[in-house]
């Protein structure tokens, strides 16, 4: 009689103590492994800091004319940047980015513009995500004529080039920042509705949904507690990239005079107001445009990073 004495496998102490990593931890790690997403996050962090601290770091109020400062500054309209550290005479008042056509300090306006830009991006996308998610969920969950009706309306919205539809909507609503935001929000609904509908369709028939249903879960619970979490990752990616598009479109509307109205320190409208002075005062066009580009770039870089980081096909490769 032989007894088989199996030596228990030596346990790797590290494997035992290894904590389980959640999807978000993995994502976070991967995001920090990409140079481009790090650049994106640094730019965004900088923008957020500027937006939060604008009242303290801005030398002047964004709407204050240099004639109204005490004592009034003797300075030309649209004067070139004057930085004391870079050799600008000390007796001249310092304006890091010069002054604009109404004798306001361009630098202060730029700083306050960061607030508006981030606010524009976040509010339009939140609006579009909320409405898009609900519509997409209803369409995917109920199917039939509800699905048909909702998705055909989305098709119609997609049939217009997005900026043109936004222009048409603002023309009807009347120019203004809120109306521009509403227009861009409406225009971006279909993207989220489609993402949500696709997610709902892919999990609707799965066992855990049937389980919830047989346990007496109502439609609301099934949709928002079972299905929505599964659609979260594509929505986050779409949302981040959507913020970039929203900021760009809002800037374009403001540039055309349909969005933020003067004297609001919005980059697009600041640029639009001075566009005919590009040959005499290029700095007034250069800085706002650069700021728009950097903001949009940061969201695009983070969005791309998130898309790769959240891709489930890659989860096991590098976790």
């Amino acid at each position: 009689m032989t007894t088989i004495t199996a030596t228990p496998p030596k346990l790797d102490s590290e494997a035992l103590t290894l904590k389980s990593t959640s999807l978000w931890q993995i994502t976070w790690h991967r995001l920090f492994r990409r140079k481009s997403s790090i650049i994106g996050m640094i730019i965004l962090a900088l923008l957020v800091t500027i937006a939060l601290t604008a009242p303290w770091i801005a030398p002047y109020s964004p709407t204050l004319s240099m004639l109204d400062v005490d004592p009034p500054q003797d300075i030309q309209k649209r004067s070139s940047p004057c930085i004391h550290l870079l050799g600008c005479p000390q007796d001249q008042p310092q304006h890091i980015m010069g002054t604009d056509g109404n004798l306001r300090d361009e630098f202060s306006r730029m700083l306050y513009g960061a607030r508006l830009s981030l606010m524009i991006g976040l509010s339009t996308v939140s609006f579009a995500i909320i409405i898009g998610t609900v519509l997409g969920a209803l369409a995917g969950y109920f199917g039939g004529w509800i699905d048909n009706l909702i998705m055909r309306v989305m098709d119609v919205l997609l049939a217009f080039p997005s900026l043109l539809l936004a222009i048409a909507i603002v023309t009807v609503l009347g120019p203004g920042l809120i109306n521009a935001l509403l227009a861009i929000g409406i225009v971006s609904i279909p993207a989220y509705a489609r993402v949500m509908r696709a997610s709902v369709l892919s999990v609707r028939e799965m066992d855990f949904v049937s389980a919830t249903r047989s346990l007496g879960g109502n439609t609301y619970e099934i949709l928002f507690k079972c299905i929505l979490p599964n659609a979260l990752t594509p929505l986050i990616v779409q949302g981040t990239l959507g913020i970039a598009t929203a900021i760009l479109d809002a800037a374009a509307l403001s540039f055309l005079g349909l969005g933020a109205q003067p004297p609001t320190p919005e980059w697009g409208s600041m640029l639009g107001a001075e566009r005919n002075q590009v040959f005499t005062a290029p700095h007034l066009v250069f800085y706002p445009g650069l700021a728009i580009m950097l903001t949009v770039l940061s969201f695009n870089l983070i969005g791309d990073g998130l898309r790769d980081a959240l891709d489930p096909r890659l989860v096991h490769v590098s976790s």
Partner: protein
Amino acid sequence: MTTYIIRRLLLSIPVLFGILFATFALARLIPGDPCRAMLGEKATKVVCDEFNHRHGLDRPIPVQFGVYVNEIAHGDFGSSFRYSKPITELLMERLPITVELSFAALLVSIFIGIPLGVISAVRHNSWVDVVTMMWANVGVSMPVFWLGLMLAYIFALALKDTPLQLPPSGRLSPGIITVPFFETWGMQLTEGSFGFIIVDFFSRMNIFNALMTGNWTLLKDAVTHLILPAFALSTIPMALIARMARSAMLEVLGQDYIRTARAKGLNRRAVILKHAFRNALLPLATVIGLSLGGLLGGAVLTETVFNLSGVGRILYDGITARDYGIVQGFTVVIAMFFVLLNLIVDVSYAYLDPRIRLN
């Protein structure tokens, strides 16, 4: 294939109907009544009643919608209050300018974007790849109007009196005149006939007209005026195309049949161009098709920046002058055009990939 096209055509009918309904609703949602919006201070009760009756605005809404659809079906897209001209006439005047600009921008983005993307994929992770992708990221984030203004500043002012100097606005230098090619050719056409409209449309594209008449001064002038706007407008599609070309090529290059082709001793060039690139063209067709919509939107901004009197510019003028006729008419036309484009993209996609039409 025929059944696919028919099915796809039928699918676009509800969308077209939706577009008509949306634009109709937009026009009715304008705050205040259209009479006051159009006539301003001249709008008294009597004038408005007359105005409403003349424009059928005193009829029930469903009837008005029916009339509207009927008019569109007959090619009547309304008229501009500001120019006192039918929209179709304005469109035939202005569209060639936008088409020329968009086409030039599309060519630039294709001929620069595709090679860049393909090279990045073939030399994956090399400096070419890194630079291209960085540049593509910046390109999609660039506000078109800003890039346009900066290009105008650099090429018209900073590089003034160098061979690189380029005009910052307009389509032709003062003094350069253009004669429609059908007149130089001595073609006999009755004004207003279908043939005349088509020929007239093409003759308004300066570059095309210059090529047809062999007028080289005109050609050179038209091209130098088109370079900056076309380049500004092309950045976003160029970046998208380069990215898509790269990822499509990377995917194809990893396939087994590429390894087989290499293993059987084909040279690198043939493998990349014949085996890989052809298969990467499919997703590229979609991106190019979808960029066309973006080009139309971008044209509004580019034409405003460069003072080109195309569709985008007239739309901008229509907005600032509150000419709702222009906004409504042009929106309908552009949306219908866009639906047609999507249809062409889908059909060509189905033609290129049999899996789609058989599904």
